[in-house]
């Protein structure tokens, strides 16, 4: 493991410290936590608070999306480990201005349970709390009888949508309804060229040969659905789009937003080449995205790879929410 760090156990507090001190205009740290909240307190007045977070290692998610128009606060756990309820509870209290707080949770048992416990705590304080559990990773079989699907890069789009609605004055109930409507229309799938190395572990989560890739891996190096020899960008696009198609039923008469997300170590050069092939592939299906972003948004430390998120814009207002201006480090 070759990383620019100090003690591996200190990565999270040091990283949060570096982030808030580099960008005091956007965020500040909630004392005695690894949670960050908007510096612009006035922007939260009279609005529903939006809190998200999860394990660290997905930077710029989640603190990079805190700011007017998007998240009100983000809670950072240990690397790839859900934050604890007391920290989430502090974030909830810090952003509540009387309109209640909405939680955006990625579907991992740890995250779900810790955020649940935090909302139990907040309810004892009479803070109304509602939440959405994002499970956009279509690589995993969906089932009521298992953990279900993982929450991955599509979560960023959920942040943007509910953040914009909150900024425009939507109520807690309206935000919950909106989030539930949006959720089934977001699908994500990834391809990995290498796994992430958690600093405290010191070696990659899995090994891929020099010419191997794996489809469907999660953002914590969870195994995917198939391993094979490296393919061209064009072929990777075909595989990923066909997977999403069988889920979202892509249709040239519908509108879509697209997120091409780098996993951490894959340069923009490759992400743009991938985007070129993706846009060609979509054009063959008569689709030209109404909204698109390319870059590192929901990473997996230093994993090499790309995830593709497609989001059907069933309601035109959703596109407005995506385009709504924000004041964050990383959107």
């Amino acid at each position, binding site marked *: 493991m070759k990383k620019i760090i100090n003690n591996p156990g200190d990565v999270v507090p040091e990283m949060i410290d570096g982030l808030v001190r580099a960008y005091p205009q956007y965020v500040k740290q909630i004392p005695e936590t690894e949670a960050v909240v908007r510096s612009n307190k006035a922007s939260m007045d009279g609005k529903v608070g939006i809190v998200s977070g999860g*394990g660290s290692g997905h930077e710029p998610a989640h603190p990079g999306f805190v700011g007017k128009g998007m998240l009100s606060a983000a809670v950072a756990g240990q690397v790839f480990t859900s*934050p*604890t309820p007391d920290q989430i509870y502090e974030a909830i209290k810090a952003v509540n201005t009387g309109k209640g707080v909405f939680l955006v949770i990625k579907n991992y048992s740890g995250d779900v349970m810790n955020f649940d416990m935090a909302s139990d705590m907040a309810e004892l304080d009479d803070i109304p709390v509602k939440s959405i559990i994002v499970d956009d990773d279509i690589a*995993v079989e969906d089932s009521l009888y298992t953990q279900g699907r993982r929450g991955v890069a599509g979560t960023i789009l959920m942040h943007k949508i509910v953040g914009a609605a909150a900024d425009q004055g939507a109520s807690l109930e309206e935000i919950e309804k909106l989030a539930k409507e949006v959720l089934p229309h977001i699908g994500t799938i990834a391809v990995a060229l290498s796994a992430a190395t958690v600093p405290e*572990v010191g070696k990659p989560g899995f090994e891929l040969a020099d010419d191997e890739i794996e489809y469907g891996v999660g953002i*914590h190096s*969870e195994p995917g659905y198939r391993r094979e020899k490296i393919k061209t960008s064009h072929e990777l696009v075909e595989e990923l789009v066909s997977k999403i198609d069988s889920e979202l039923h892509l249709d040239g008469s519908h509108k879509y937003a697209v997120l091409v997300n780098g996993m951490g170590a894959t340069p923009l050069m490759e992400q743009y080449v991938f985007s070129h092939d993706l846009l060609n592939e979509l054009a063959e299906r008569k689709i030209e995205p109404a909204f698109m972003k390319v870059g590192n948004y929901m990473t997996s430390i230093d994993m090499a790879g790309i995830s593709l998120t497609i989001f059907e814009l069933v309601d035109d207002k959703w596109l407005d929410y995506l385009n709504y201006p924000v004041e964050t480090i990383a959107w």
Partner: protein
Amino acid sequence: MMITVEIVDKWMELFYLKVSEQKAYLSELDTPIGDGDHGNNMMRGMQGVKDSLDKLTKPDLKTTFKTIAMALISKVGGAAGPLYGTAFLEMAKKCDETQAPVELFSYALEGIKKRGGATVGDKTMIDVWAPVVDILEKSSLSVEQIREAANGTKDLVAKKGRASYLGERSVGHLDPGAVSSQYLFESFIEAGGIK
């Protein structure tokens, strides 16, 4: 045999030591079917438990359980934190009514099930907690029985937690949370919790 503050103190001391010794092993178990942090998570938690208990002066049983619960909840994170935390929180809630291990563990187990939505056979820590309660309802509890329960998770298909993403491929691996629960109950026996 009733649970006392002295037993719990000893229990936590021994569990702390076991987790320290087996930290790397627990994380290793978590690698093929999870994210390789279970040992680190439990160590962080038990360090917190130790630090918090050290600060208490002459606590009662309820305070002791609650302190353990809060330390686990606020230090572990991940899936194990809320689950172990809930278990001890439930014991804190009920320990005025009863100090019988079987009853307290049974309340704890209900808490774990409710918190995580898993059930017996899902290849989780429940597959150690449930047999332990069952056995205690009928008789005493031995180290062998606990280990047998933990080893039994090897053959199961994971339905909850990170391992569930692997589906059938989770078979053949021990569940890390089951093994840390094995250590928990072994420590309990060693602390003199079972007559």
